Structures are given as C-alpha cells and as structure tokens.
C-alpha cells in the first residue's frame, strides 16, 4: 500500500467516495467526494502525538467492537496514509465546542477544524471496481447466540484477537480475561444455507484451519473442534495443510452445528458453551462443551453494492455480487466497456485468486491504454440524415443514452461508443431512418422468406 502511494503514476485518494460516473470507455467523468479528515495532509508528519493526547475514546471499528480507539485516530497501525482522521460524531470539540487538545499539541500545526467536504472531478479512460465484501452478521442466526453469549465470536473478531497489534496483544482470551481450554470453530455460518446465502464462501474452510493452527500454537494443550459440512481445500498446498492439522490433533466433526446453549445437562458442561451437533460420520448426536466458539461467517456483497452497481452500470448476479461479462471466458470485464472488476466484489475468493484477477484487470486496462484506441462493435445503429424527421422518438427509447439530437441539423445522432446495437431505435423509427447494421429490415425480411417460403 505504501509503495502504491509513493508511485509517481498513481494518485491515491483515501477517505473518498465516488458519487457519480458518466461517459463511456476512454471518456469517463468521475465525481469523487473528498471527505474532510480535519487534518492537513500536506503538514501532518504522522507522529501520533495527537492520538496520545486525545482524551476521548470510541469503539474501534477495525477491532469489530473488541477494542477502543481515540477520537482522532488511524484505523490500524499500517494504514496508508499514516495520517489520523477526526471522528466528528464523537469529538468533544464538534459536539460541545471545547477541547482542541490535538490542535494544541500538534507541532506541525496540521489540525484544521475548518476543513470541508469537496467534490473533485477527474477524467479517466477505464475503471476497475474493487469494492470488496461485507462479513455476514451472525446475530440473525439466533440459535448460535452471537451477541448473547460472551464467548461466541465471529471469525473476524478471532483474527483481531490473534493479531499481535490487536486489542489483546495477540492473546486469545475469554471475556473474563482467562485463557480458553477448548475452542469450537463452526464452518458455513450463513454460507451453503438456503435461508441466507446458498453459495459457498470459499475462504472459510482455510481460515478456519488457520485458526485451529493458531489456537494450537498459542494454547498447546487446548481441545480444538472443527464442525464442518465438507472440507473444501481446493487451492495449491491447501490439502497438505489440512493433512498437517489432522496430525496436530484437531478434532474434525463432520456435521453442521444446530445450536449453542449454556444450559448444562451433563457433568462437565457447567459454565461452558455446549455445541449441539449431529456427527454424520458416526450417525450420532453430540454435545460438545467448549469455552469459546468461533463462527466462520460468510462473505456477502457490500450493503451498498446495488448503488455502486448502478453508478458504474454493472449488473449483479443472483447472489448480489457484481457480474462479470462471461463466467468462464471473460471473468474480469463487465458488460459496460471500460469497466472491470476484481476481488470479492465479483464473488467470494481467496487472496491468490484476488491477486490474479486484479493483475488481469490491470493488464486489460494497460492493453487498452497502450493501443490508444478502442474497437467498437460493428452491429450498431446508424441514422440516415436525409430521412430523419427529427421526431425524437428514439431518444427516449434508447436504454444506453447513446442517441442525442443536434439542434442545427435537427436530426438524431448516435454515439457509436455507447450504442450496443440492440436495434430498438430502428424498430421504433417512424420514418425508417435508423438502420440497425447487420440486422437491417431487409435482412430480416429475407431471412423470413428463407425459412417460410
């Protein structure tokens, strides 16, 4: 990330949002909302004094509720750029007009409470959309008691906990601060489930295995259970990792957990979470008492994926992820020329697949830039200026806004880069002035004669 930011040909805009996209391949106009961070990027040295001096704390979004952060903060230690932002909603100065501690201690005089939002407009030739995914909220699956029982945590929370710079400094801890002696990891939470997402999220099997390995490493004598439907270790070296974990003494239970309860029925269950599961390999119901449960949650489309899709004219597949042009032959492009997708916004995928798709998208864009021109479809519409009466019927019908009207000549003009060749205008033109190339009225009539006479 840091080397991307320092690259001379790359301009990185963080804390910014695309608000509007217009134009077409080679000529996109993009409006970007630059949110105020209340810190002058040209002055801030990233020393971190402001974060030390800030007296107010708020929940740390990056730690998914496990830790706290200051109100002037960088989301995580490696964040690029290494410059803080003021959380306006919790800042005492913005709420009550007093404090300004950060401003007082900032040696670089970089704090600027007067910053306002601004809109930048840029011209670009191609767009690569890489907006990522959201993590499934497991609290809707009430049978697992996420949010109800203290020690039922999501995969991402486990990840933060096991991180050396995370809220527990890398220690796996229960809510009361003690170390868990047994951990159950539940696969497919929200995935492969007709009630939530039917698709497989692809990454959970492997990160669940990684979690087991981390627990084994940090707490060597812990009992670790993996509750899975199927182990899908599809990538290079993945099956070998699975084999290795079997040798590390992880208990693999083939079955989808039905419920988590804190009601003890048998000795040894007191004060523990009991996972109810049918072990389908031995055809028996089991009650597994553990200290901590990790839910391996599904990857789902971002909450605002519909809005983003509309902005960039991308279609979405049934599962809500952005749709590629062709699932096998063109998995990087979209149906809008010049707009490409990469990563989890197109569908759940792991890091190697994301890197491959992103590199492919970059290569496709570079190929277009190098070429310097764009090939357009031959099967598009054309207007015969002599016959066009200027009735404007076609203007309202065109789904791609490819037709405009010239006032001086009083005729319709088709933008060849935007036209998809659907031919709706040709069918609707009352004076027959629009020709749908390769699908002319004469050609279709001749075909009719060919098959019927």
């Amino acid at each position: 990330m840091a080397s991307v930011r320092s690259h001379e040909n790359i301009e990185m805009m963080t804390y910014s949002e695309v608000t509007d996209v217009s134009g077409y391949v080679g000529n996109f106009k993009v409006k970007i909302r630059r949110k105020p961070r209340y810190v002058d990027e040209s002055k801030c040295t990233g020393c971190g004094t402001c974060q030390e001096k800030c007296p107010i704390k708020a929940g740390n979004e990056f730690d998914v509720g496990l830790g706290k952060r200051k109100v002037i903060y960088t989301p995580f230690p490696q964040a690029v750029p290494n410059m803080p932002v003021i959380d306006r909603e919790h800042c005492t100065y913005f709420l009550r007009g007093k404090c300004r501690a950060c401003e007082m201690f900032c040696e670089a005089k970089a704090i600027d409470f007067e910053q306002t939002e601004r809109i930048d407009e840029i011209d670009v030739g191609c767009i690569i959309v890489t907006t990522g995914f959201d993590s499934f909220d497991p609290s809707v699956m009430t049978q697992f008691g996420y949010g109800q029982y203290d020690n039922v945590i999501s995969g991402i929370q486990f990840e933060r906990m096991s991180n050396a710079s995370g809220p527990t400094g890398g220690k796996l801890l229960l809510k009361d601060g003690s170390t868990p002696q047994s951990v159950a990891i539940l696969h497919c939470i929200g995935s492969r489930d007709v009630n939530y997402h039917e698709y497989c999220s692809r990454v959970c099997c492997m990160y669940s295995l990684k979690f087991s390995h981390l627990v084994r490493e940090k707490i060597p004598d812990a009992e670790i259970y993996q509750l899975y439907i199927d182990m899908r270790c599809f990538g290079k070296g993945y099956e070998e990792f699975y084999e290795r974990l079997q040798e590390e003494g992880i208990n693999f239970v083939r079955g989808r957990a039905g419920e988590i309860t804190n009601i003890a029925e048998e000795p040894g269950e007191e004060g523990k979470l009991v996972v109810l599961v049918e072990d389908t390999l031995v055809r028996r119901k089991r009650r597994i008492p553990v200290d901590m449960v990790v839910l391996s949650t599904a990857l789902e489309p971002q909450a605002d994926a519909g809005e983003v899709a509309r902005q960039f004219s991308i279609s979405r597949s049934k599962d809500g992820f952005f749709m590629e042009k062709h699932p096998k032959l063109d998995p990087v492009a979209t149906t809008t020329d010049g707009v490409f997708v990469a990563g989890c916004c197109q569908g759940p995928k792991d890091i190697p697949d994301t890197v491959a798709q992103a590199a492919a998208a970059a290569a496709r864009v570079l190929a277009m830039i190098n070429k310097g021109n764009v090939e357009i479809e031959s099967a598009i519409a054309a207007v015969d200026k002599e016959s066009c009466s200027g009735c404007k019927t076609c203007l309202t019908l065109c789904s791609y806004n490819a037709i405009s009207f010239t006032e001086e000549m009083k005729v319709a003009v088709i933008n060849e880069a935007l036209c998809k060749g659907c031919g709706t205008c040709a069918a609707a033109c009352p004076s027959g002035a629009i020709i749908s190339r390769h699908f002319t009225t004469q050609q279709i009539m001749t075909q009719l004669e060919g098959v019927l006479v």
Partner: protein
Amino acid sequence: MSFEPRIIGFLCNWCSYAGADLAGTSRKKYVPNVRVIRVMCSGRVDPSFIVKAFQLGADGVLVCG
C-alpha cells in the same frame, strides 16, 4: 397427417438465443417447429416483421427477450 405448425421465433441474442444455443451444447432435443431468427434485442422486432411472417404462412410467432 398430423398438424405440424411452422412457428417463427425472434430470439434475443443475450438471453433466449443464448438459451437455445445452450440447449444445443447441452445436447437437449426439442421439436424443430420453431424457426429461429436472431435479433440483438427483442426491441428490434418491428411489428411489420410479425405481420410479414403471418403473410408468408407462419402459424405462430414467438418473440422472446
């Protein structure tokens, strides 16, 4: 002799024509009564095409898109 209708099908390139193509590659059999004419969109189908088809003796016209 049983009645064998002759039906003209105007199929959209992106959905129904692709579907007919998929039926072919999946080796699914279907009756040959529909004669397919590919269009880039069902919006391309001018009402005059339908009238012309009936004039030329078609028993039915299918517009899919």
